[in-house]
């Protein structure tokens, strides 16, 4: 193998793959993004509503710095980025070599429809005689054997389901572009055969996602497929979707009626014998679906969720659950339905359940939703064999706590390594891309690379608009050339109208480029029927005519408007096209990390490992944070060693500077350019210039005075138990009975959120004590065991080892009475419906996690904290570690409760976020960026208030509003609040909009 490679391969173009690919592309790597499916988006292309926002927001994954590198459009259409080569219907077949120097073999499925020729005209589908269940709608609606796999994908290339195709040849005949070439008896060769490509890559990210459990494969099918109104959660998502089988109206599949009572059955295919883990997301999905149903039906459809434990363990989820119950009237019942039966008399579905009182009841519904558990993706096993990455017992990619010492350049991203919601997947994917970047950065040190400067184009900014119009024409379309020509003639700014034959074909396109290259237009407007096809090709025109893409635009002839309106609107738009000549100042290639715990150190290492500088500020005298007192996690990871290794690496790393006994005092500037002063122990001030900041300020075990804590030595917290066990001052052999109480001061009105890690801590300590003293009686008093994901296996183990779990409710809390000999715990046992008195030697309280106080610190960097005083992320799903302004990131406990492994992932993700920002060269200001005319500005500051990105500041010395072109995302709300248009949005100027409106009418 030769040189280290600067290209990364990302396998899987779902959310995780897109996140990783963008991470790597934005940091200057070349990325090949492949997906086995003929479209991108993965399972997300079928899901539209995400908890806890009940909306989408996927587009927030797009780059914020250097926005123009990426097509600014809904990600459901597709991802077009200059640095990402997308290969669909492609799989990884082989991988040889070592980290940094791999040779990958990619296989692209043979295709019957030539994607380069197909324009998505739909004629093939119209004539196709074969009707099949539509896989996009999980078979709830039908489509043709030749069909569009995902309706919103662009380019919209058709595919043929060869399992159903009868090779009748109708489509082949009707295709106006000759894009279809069916195999037949006399022509067994496919026109576009299976192709193998060998490619040198430095690192590989595996983001192949998950599959869903098939109820038909299990012992209890719950009537799935046998009863039409029993649907899976994915099917329900399709039913609720605007592109779904009923166009978005909620109907039951059997008869198209609106259901009146719907039930959700949780843990179908999870937490059972076959799959002893929790699928982590189904509880929230069910809550969200029930809320959507309640909202849609104006609360007329009754929704009941039958659950075992309602696992709302992430920061905002408990609040969501409360809203679902209290505001939307979703009914939650703790019960596991035994089976679903069809009731012949009513045509309904009856569930046999036993509620808490122990009475068995039949409940009638007319639609039942199965919350299907997740399974490893189909390709996981094969990919594991190809790449040598290990699998855990459940068949997911192994996900070690720390990647240190790993020689591999292959990293799992997202749910391929375990069950995660979108937010966690996004974090995990960025974590994977950070590790991949570390492997390849040497080959292509992104921040040293000179990007093609935009000012290499000829300067036309001062020229009078000289517009060239390209009219794309089909032979079979109406002849509109004379009309367009006459419109061109009457516009003083148009100097040429050229009709081209079908630029959607290779010949037509090349012909257009040739024609354009001969001219010297300084604005180009292309009129075409489906300009979406060319969205990724602007760069090609730009190169051919040596013109900034800012001056090239498309107008859509396919929207059904009068021709004159379309053309004139297009001309008005292009006439004002321009690029702001302000320049963003250079990014400072340094990241400030506040907090030197596990998160902070990991983030700093991730930054420094890719060649940038990291500065850690730690207020204590030593690094380590909570790791200092923790011994190990539930899986047995040794934190002492982890701490030593991490500290050693940090201290030795030439790219990391550490300030202990230091705090941040003040900061100015914005994303890309901060100047921050630190106060060190000797009261010195230190000035740091940095481009981004990561808040890794951590959190702590909450203090408590509940259950007699502080009055009796027999009442301890988990931290104290951990320390006592570590120090050997506690020996479980001397104990007879231990009671652990969960959710102390948590998940109540004063502290709403679930601290997520306490259940795991209790399981860890219960198992550890049982190991040291099998005779010990351990009782865990819990409200909801949040042993999500693989930790469910420890819950099972604890039960097997004889730990007794007793559920208590918020209303009926346990009581702890201290006496002379130990303490007495009184708790109501709901199954037996009686109060138990447990005389115990030790009571352990799970008091939850509180964040460090970061509000003032966050405010210094224009970031905010949430209702619980944790860092407020811009979006819990799509931008889970970043502040809205794009220059501030957070990780670990500062973000919200999470365990060590999750903290490490979030730290790498935060580092990746910072790297995305500081690697962007910002050669030019993005096309659509706000500006200001100071001569008109009266400093009312409304624009500052309206800017969510903090891109606007008042420079009171100069008496001017300043705009940070990196922070500005071009939303234009500042322009809309400005009464005299002193604030404006470039390429959406008032006069331009007026002309467009005039042209439209």
């Amino acid at each position, binding site marked *: 193998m030769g040189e280290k490679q600067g290209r990364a391969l990302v396998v899987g173009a779902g959310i995780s793959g897109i996140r990783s690919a963008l991470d790597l592309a934005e940091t200057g790597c070349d990325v090949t993004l492949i997906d086995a499916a003929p479209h991108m988006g993965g399972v997300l292309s079928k899901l*539209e509503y995400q908890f806890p*926002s*009940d*909306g*989408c*927001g996927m*587009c*927030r994954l797009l780059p914020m710095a250097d926005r123009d590198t990426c097509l*600014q*459009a*809904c990600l*459901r*259409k597709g991802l077009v980025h200059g640095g990402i080569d997308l290969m669909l219907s492609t799989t990884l077949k082989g991988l040889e070599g070592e980290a940094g120097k791999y040779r990958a073999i990619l296989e692209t499925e043979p295709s019957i429809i030539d994607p380069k020729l197909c324009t*998505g005209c*739909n004629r093939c589908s119209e004539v196709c005689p074969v009707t099949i269940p539509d896989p996009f709608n999980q078979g709830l609606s039908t489509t043709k054997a030749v069909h*569009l796999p995902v*309706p*919103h994908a*662009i380019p*919209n290339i058709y595919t043929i389901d060869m399992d159903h195709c009868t090779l009748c040849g109708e489509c082949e005949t009707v295709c106006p572009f000759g894009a279809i070439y069916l195999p037949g008896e006399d022509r067994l060769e496919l026109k576009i055969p299976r192709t193998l490509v060998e490619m040198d890559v430095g690192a590989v990210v595996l983001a192949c996602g998950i599959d869903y459990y098939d109820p038909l494969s299990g012992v209890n099918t719950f009537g799935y497929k046998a009863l039409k109104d029993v649907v899976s959660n994915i099917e329900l998502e399709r039913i609720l*979707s*605007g*592109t779904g089988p009923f*166009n*978005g109206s909620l109907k039951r599949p059997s008869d198209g009626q609106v259901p009146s009572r719907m039930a959700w059955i949780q843990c179908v295919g999870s937490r059972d014998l076959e799959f002893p883990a929790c699928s982590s997301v189904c509880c929230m999905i069910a809550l969200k679906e029930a809320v959507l149903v309640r909202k849609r039906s104006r609360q007329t459809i009754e929704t009941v969720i039958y659950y075992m434990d309602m696992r709302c363990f992430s920061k905002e989820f408990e609040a969501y659950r409360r809203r679902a119950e209290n505001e939307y009237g979703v009914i939650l019942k703790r019960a596991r339905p035994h089976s679903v039966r069809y009731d012949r008399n009513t045509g309904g579905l009856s569930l046999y359940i036993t509620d808490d009182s122990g009475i068995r009841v039949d409940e009638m519904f007319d639609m039942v939703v199965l919350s299907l558990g997740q399974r490893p993706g189909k390709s996981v096993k094969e990919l594991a064999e190809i790449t040598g990455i290990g699998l855990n017992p459940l068949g997911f990619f192994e996900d070690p706590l720390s990647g240190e010492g790993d020689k591999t350049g292959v990293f799992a991203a997202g749910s391929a390594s375990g069950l995660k919601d979108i937010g966690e997947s996004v974090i995990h994917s960025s974590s994977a891309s950070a590790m991949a970047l570390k492997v390849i950065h040497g080959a292509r040190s992104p921040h040293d690379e000179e990007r093609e400067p935009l000012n290499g184009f000829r300067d036309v900014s001062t020229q009078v608009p000289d517009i060239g119009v390209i009219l794309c024409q089909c032979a079979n379309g109406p002849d509109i050339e004379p009309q367009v020509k006459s419109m061109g003639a009457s516009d003083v700014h148009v100097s040429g109208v050229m009709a081209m034959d079908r630029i959607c074909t290779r010949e037509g396109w090349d012909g257009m480029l040739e024609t354009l290259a001969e001219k010297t237009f300084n604005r180009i407007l292309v009129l075409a029927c*489906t300009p*979406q096809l060319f969205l990724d090709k602007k760069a090609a025109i730009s190169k051919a005519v040596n013109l900034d893409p800012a001056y090239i635009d498309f107008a859509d002839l*396919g*929207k*059904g*408007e*009068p021709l004159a*309106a379309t053309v004139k*609107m297009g001309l008005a738009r292009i006439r004002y096209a321009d690029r702001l000549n302000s320049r963003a100042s250079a990014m400072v290639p340094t990241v400030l990390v506040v907090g030197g715990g596990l998160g902070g150190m990991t983030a700093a290492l991730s930054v420094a490992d890719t060649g940038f500088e990291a500065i850690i500020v730690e207020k204590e005298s030593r690094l380590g944070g909570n790791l200092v007192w923790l011994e190990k996690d539930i899986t047995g990871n040794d934190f002492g060693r982890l701490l030593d290794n991490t500290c050693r690496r940090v201290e030795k790393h030439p790219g990391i500077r550490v300030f202990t006994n230091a705090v941040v005092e003040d900061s100015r500037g914005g994303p890309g350019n901060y100047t921050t002063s630190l106060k060190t122990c000797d009261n010195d001030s230190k000035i740091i210039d940095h481009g981004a900041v990561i808040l890794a300020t951590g959190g702590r075990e909450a203090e408590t005075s509940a259950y007699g804590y502080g009055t009796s030595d027999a009442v301890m917290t988990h931290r104290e138990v951990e320390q006592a066990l570590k120090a050997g001052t506690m020996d479980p052999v001397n104990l007879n009975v231990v009671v652990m109480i969960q959710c102390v001061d948590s998940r109540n009105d004063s502290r709403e959120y679930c601290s997520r890690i306490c259940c795991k801590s209790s399981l860890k300590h219960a198992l550890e004590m049982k190991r040291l003293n099998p005779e010990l009686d351990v009782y865990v008093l819990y409200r909801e065991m949040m042993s999500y994901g693989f930790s469910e296996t420890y819950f099972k183990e604890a039960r097997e080892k004889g730990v007794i779990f007793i559920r208590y409710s918020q209303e009926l809390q346990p009581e702890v009475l201290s006496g002379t000999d130990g303490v007495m715990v009184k708790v109501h046992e709901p199954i037996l419906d009686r109060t138990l008195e447990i005389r115990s030697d030790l009571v352990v309280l799970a008091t939850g996690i509180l964040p460090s106080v970061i509000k003032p610190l966050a405010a210094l960097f224009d970031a905010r904290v949430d209702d619980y005083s944790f860092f407020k992320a*811009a*979006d819990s799903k799509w931008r889970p570690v970043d502040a*809205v302004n794009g220059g501030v990131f957070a990780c670990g406990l500062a973000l919200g409760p999470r365990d060590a492994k999750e903290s490490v992932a979030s730290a790498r993700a935060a580092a990746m976020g910072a790297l995305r920002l500081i690697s962007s060269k910002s050669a030019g200001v993005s096309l*659509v960026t706000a500006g200001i005319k100071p001569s008109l500005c009266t400093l009312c500051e409304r624009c500052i208030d*309206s800017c*969510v990105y903090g891109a606007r500041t008042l420079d009171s010395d100069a008496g001017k509003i300043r705009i940070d072109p990196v922070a500005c*995302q*071009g*939303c*234009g*709300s500042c*322009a*809309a*609040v400005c009464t005299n*248009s002193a604030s404006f*949005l470039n390429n*959406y100027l*008032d006069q331009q*909009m*007026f002309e*467009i*409106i*005039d042209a*439209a*009418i």
Partner: protein
Amino acid sequence: MERFEPTIIAFVCNWCTYTAADLAGTSRQKYPPNVRLIRVMCTGMVDPKYVVKAFLSGADAVLVSGCHPGDCHYINGNYKARRRVRLLHGILGRFGIDRERLRLTWIGASDGIEFAKVIHTMVAEIKELGPAVSDMKLVI
């Protein structure tokens, strides 16, 4: 008399409703040709001046359409748009341009069919209502 064909100006956000309009196209959802789509980055950038300009230039109705609450690419532009449209309803409503003629809708990226439906409904209703400002040629 010639059948009245209204002109509707639709300010659609680049992220959601524009995608829905594209989707309506690719899913062969036909909608009347009376609507002129003007793509804006966000409904939050629709200056009330644009709406007024559209009416004074002869539009019979204006549609402002963007992402569902919570979905805005720019976090909250659609909420700002909602207040602005409310203000416009309050002002234009006094002068005979009532709320049927100025609509704000949330149409998500997957709502291609919904988009076509909205246009259908709106065109049909405006046809009933008649031209918006036909009698003011001289006075503006």
